[in-house]
């Protein structure tokens, strides 16, 4: 189904480009009374067709059609086909050469691009794996150690001591849950380069869910929420985008030292929704800003703060899989700002009606 549509689209594009070239040539012939430009126009058309279509087929068809058109309409005697002219055979050869070379080049380019994306994903996986092996051990050590301590010294520990240890166990387990949620997100977008499954999601409901979940974990941290008044529905994988927002908010809580206010804002601009998470904490050190989404930020490899790098690189991977942009900057008034944009199917024109 997808294939048929794609082929039809390419056929239409080929037809349009050739049609445009033909009309342009007719126009030029009448305006300038010269034919020297005409083959150049057709070569350009053939180039464009082979550049924009995936398969050789359309390029070859385009070059053959071009040769016929040249021969038919723009070579003396006009509007007759005449294959005795050696010129037409030459131009046919040239156009075919252009087609084949362009198609080969574009295919190669596309392959390279795909490989780059693939290696980026590979890098993310490697980073995650490294972080997992480093970072899972610490909370597991605490959980295992505290549990054995309680079991072995059940009668000797005071109530208070036991409560304290149990509290720490829960804290560590909570941290593990968040780590695993991030890992799950990555597997959800990792499958064979398939992009995410998007369902229209009501912005207000998404924000509500994220903020509620956040409030449960950090009851003392206020968030200033600002979203458009009107009904906004954006196609997305809501669970993954929720994960991005959660990561960004938690990132602020964990790393923005001296933060007094945390703001989550969503605006609609044209056919884009722009999400920002801004704090007024210590900001991001300049030397970390560049690679902040690549998973290399964060402290020493052993530090718990490494999760920041992982969390942010997961964010970047999710947003990229949605075809959006993500960025980080230091605010002029102090503090850090993380933002990302998602595309909507249709432009936000005030009130979306049904």
């Amino acid at each position, binding site marked *: 189904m997808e294939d048929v549509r794609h082929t039809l689209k390419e056929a239409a594009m080929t037809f349009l480009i050739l049609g445009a070239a033909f009309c342009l040539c007719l126009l030029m012939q009448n305006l300038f009374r010269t034919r020297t430009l005409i083959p150049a126009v057709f070569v350009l058309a053939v180039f464009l067709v082979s550049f924009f279509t995936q398969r050789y087929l359309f390029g070859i068809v385009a070059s053959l059609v071009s040769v016929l058109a040249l021969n038919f309409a723009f070579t003396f005697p006009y509007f007759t086909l005449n294959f005795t002219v050696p010129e037409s055979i030459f131009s046919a050869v040239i156009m075919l050469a252009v087609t084949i070379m362009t198609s080969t080049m574009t295919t190669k380019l596309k392959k390279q691009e795909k490989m780059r994306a693939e290696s980026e994903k590979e890098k993310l996986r490697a980073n995650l794996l490294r972080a997992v092996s480093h970072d899972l051990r610490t909370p597991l050590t605490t959980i295992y150690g505290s549990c054995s301590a309680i079991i072995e010294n059940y009668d000797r520990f005071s109530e208070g001591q036991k409560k304290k240890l149990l509290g720490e166990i829960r804290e560590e387990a909570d941290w593990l849950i968040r780590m695993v949620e991030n890992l*799950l997100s990555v597997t959800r977008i990792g499958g064979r380069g398939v992009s995410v499954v998007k369902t229209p*999601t*009501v912005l207000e409901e998404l*924000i509500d869910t994220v903020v*509620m979940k956040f409030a449960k974990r950090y009851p003392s941290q206020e968030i200033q929420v600002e979203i458009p008044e009107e009904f906004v529905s954006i196609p997305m994988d809501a669970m993954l985008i929720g994960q991005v927002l959660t990561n960004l908010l938690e990132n602020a809580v964990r790393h923005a030292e001296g933060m007094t206010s945390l703001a989550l804002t969503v605006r609609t601009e044209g056919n884009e929704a722009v999400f920002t998470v801004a704090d007024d904490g210590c900001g991001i050190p300049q030397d970390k800003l560049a690679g902040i989404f690549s998973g290399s930020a964060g402290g020493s490899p052993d530090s718990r703060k490494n999760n920041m790098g992982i969390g942010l690189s997961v964010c970047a991977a999710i947003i990229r899989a949605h075809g959006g942009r993500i960025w980080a900057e230091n605010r002029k008034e102090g503090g850090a700002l993380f933002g990302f944009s998602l595309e909507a199917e249709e432009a936000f024109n005030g009130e979306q009606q*049904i």
Partner: protein
Amino acid sequence: MGNNRYKILVVEDEANIRSFVSAVLETNGYQVLTAGTCSQGELVAASHCPDLIILDLGLPDQDGLELIRRVRLSSLVPVIVLSARSGEKDKVAALDAGANDYVTKPFGTEELMARVRAAIRNSRHGPEKEGRFVTGDMEIDYDKRRISIGGEEIRLTQTEYNIVAFLSEHPGKVLTYAAIIKAVWGDAGQGCVKRLQVNMANIRKKFGVKPGRGRYILNELGVGYRMQEEHE
């Protein structure tokens, strides 16, 4: 709650999860039955008539959904599903098969107990069609078809009222988009989730609810909505 001895059947193949869930239920005064497989669960359910079933969907012998369907053939016992995080689809499928609620793994015992209490209360008292419904400072007067918050009447359209009233008949229970649409618009409304969402947005606006405050009607993203319970 101490003296009630509601019977709860826990169907879960992980022994550790079964053990801590049973422990919490027992200390809260419930009588606990356990099963490790789908078929065993079905047997126990048939012979002991539990008041509630807590069911893990990923069982070794069969899909937990099968158990819900078979139990539903003969009984209205409330079923709470324990679901893995990945996928709203599983949740919707379970709810549509007849489950009453779900808890996402990993879960806290507090959350589980709240769901258990809500499910049992709902099944005991049944929908209160007549009279009134109260949650927080919101009140619904079913006879006059009137909703008020803090004593002040909220003007809703017929459709908006029908949605809120339907949700309030099952407080604490997640109702899927499909179930709400069917109840409000009948079969004609099938598949039109956006219409429901737009109506819901208007309801929130009229209720003066700000995102993140979670008042009155709770979002279950990608699944449906849930009316807040009185005690939540």
